[in-house]
């Protein structure tokens, strides 16, 4: 038995990987974990429900969106640009972290997570939300609902979400340009 092979070229965190041979049917999370050593994205449910595995897909129209890597085949990402949790913080030339992203820092400051398994997914979801609000700010009165709508598909089994949502709300309200006046 031979497994069909497909070529994959994908840009992850600004760096091009491939062209490389990937067995057809391999989900992207397996490519990240097993072939590229990027183990930060979490495999939770494996059926696209918990969203621990989401990465950020940077679309050509300058928008960004979440993609679940546990149910999305590697082939989908051929020729695309994505960001994983490993690329979120600023690093120096040696790869050492020098500054966390505002979302990451807020999650730490507010003790948003406990076991941390779902955290990469929450960081990516919140990052996508912040980027969306940069393009299209919402009234300050709608921030709470906007955060809830953006994060509601992400499952956390430890903390009850309150501190996650609170941290993201604070980031949005204290970052200029993400909100406008009004309710």
């Amino acid at each position: 038995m031979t497994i069909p092979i497909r070529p994959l070229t994908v840009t992850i965190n600004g760096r091009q990987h491939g062209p490389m041979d990937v067995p057809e049917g391999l989900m992207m999370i397996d490519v990240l974990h097993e072939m590229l050593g990027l183990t930060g994205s979490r495999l939770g449910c494996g059926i696209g429900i918990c969203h621990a595995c989401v990465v950020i897909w940077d679309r050509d129209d300058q928008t960004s969106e979440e993609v679940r890597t546990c149910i999305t085949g590697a082939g989908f990402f051929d020729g695309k640009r994505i960001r994983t949790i490993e690329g979120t913080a600023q690093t120096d030339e040696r790869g050492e972290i020098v500054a966390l992203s505002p979302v990451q820092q807020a999650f730490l400051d507010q003790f948003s997570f406990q076991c941390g398994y779902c955290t990469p997914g929450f960081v990516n979801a919140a990052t996508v939300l912040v980027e969306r609000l940069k393009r299209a700010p919402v009234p300050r009165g709608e921030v709470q609902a906007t955060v809830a709508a953006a994060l509601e598909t992400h499952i956390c089994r430890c903390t009850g979400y309150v501190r996650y949502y609170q941290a993201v709300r604070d980031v949005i309200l204290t970052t200029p340009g993400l909100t406008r006046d009004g309710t």
Partner: protein
Amino acid sequence: MRVRRRRTFLIAAAIAIAAVAAAAFAMRNLLSGRTGGPMQVVSAPPDVVARGKYLAEAADCAACHTAPGGTPLAGGLPMPSGYGTIYATNITPDPDNGIGRWSADDFWRALHDGVRRDGQQLYPAMPYTSYRGMTRADADAIYAYLMQMRPMKVANRRTELNFPFNIRLGMAGWNLLFLHDSLPAVSVGSSPAWQRGRYLVNVLGHCGECHTPRGIVGEMELSRSFTGFALGRVAAPDITPAGLAARGWTAAALVAFLGRGLARQGSAFGDMHPVIMLSTRNLTPADLDAVATYLLGDSPPAPTSLAAPDPAEVAADANGAGRISYVALCAGCHGLEGNGMPNTVVAMRNNSTLRLADPRNLIVAMLDGIGAENFPHRQSMQAMPGFADKLSDAEAAALANYLRVTWGGEKGDVTADAVRALR
């Protein structure tokens, strides 16, 4: 052309008859129309009320007479149509908003003649066209059940129909043309189960109201009964014996589907999901068997087993675009071999929606996704994402064709235009 001429004639006839009927009915109905009157007090034995509950579920009153998230049977579901929007009414025994002042005779008239207690015509969004075949005893039992519910003070919303459809009296003429005492049999049979099934399907279940094509003035085209129709975004498929057998349905599979919402052929989605949850799941095993017996007939046609993919059709997807999309977006859950996951994700192989000649429902499912759904016996299916923003029209068409050819035994004849039309 002939069909169109016939339709034009029918419309003209309908309007003419409506005008004549208007005079006669205006006299009778407006004079007899009642709005006030005493609150009815109904005392029925518990077994009659229980039977009424069973029949009300079999007749699926709740599917329309309950708004999403609303009070059971207190009305409010908007039913959009080409003629405007009709809102289902409150049928709890509230005296002012519901049927609290209605007598059993009033209730019977609504089900049997499509006439409200105040003498106004109902619109056939209320399926009196099917309920007309109901026995008086069954109508009375449903009435007894409804009248012992808690009255709910939920106001009805006015229908929003365009002229001339907003003239309720016009329905009197429509009824003369299109209201029949019984609907045609869709299969051949005579057994007691078949006869019971005919009553459950044609009358109580009013299956034809969605599954039978509708003509230009909204009438069921009875000569094409159960051959399928797209009243909403998800089409009601062909459920004639031949149509069902062609997609591999057997009596046992129909019983599983109607009783649990899940079968090897797929899970209920779209408007059929509430039908399962509110109605058919409550049917007794004997009644479920009767429904399956009637749908397929006393001598069911042999189910068509799925043929191997047509090599010519497979070759047509020369660059494998459909398979590439399938592996990228679908195989993570539905599996490389299309087998799905037990209790979690339906199989693509042999899936009834893939085996429909009309690709509409397949395209709609791919574009819109299907929300997470609960089923009887604590079963559930996870949500399927929609892929409208991830697939171009051409990619979606290629994917639909891959699915149809590989696991549906259908032709790969879906075009990008067909996808675009459903966006």
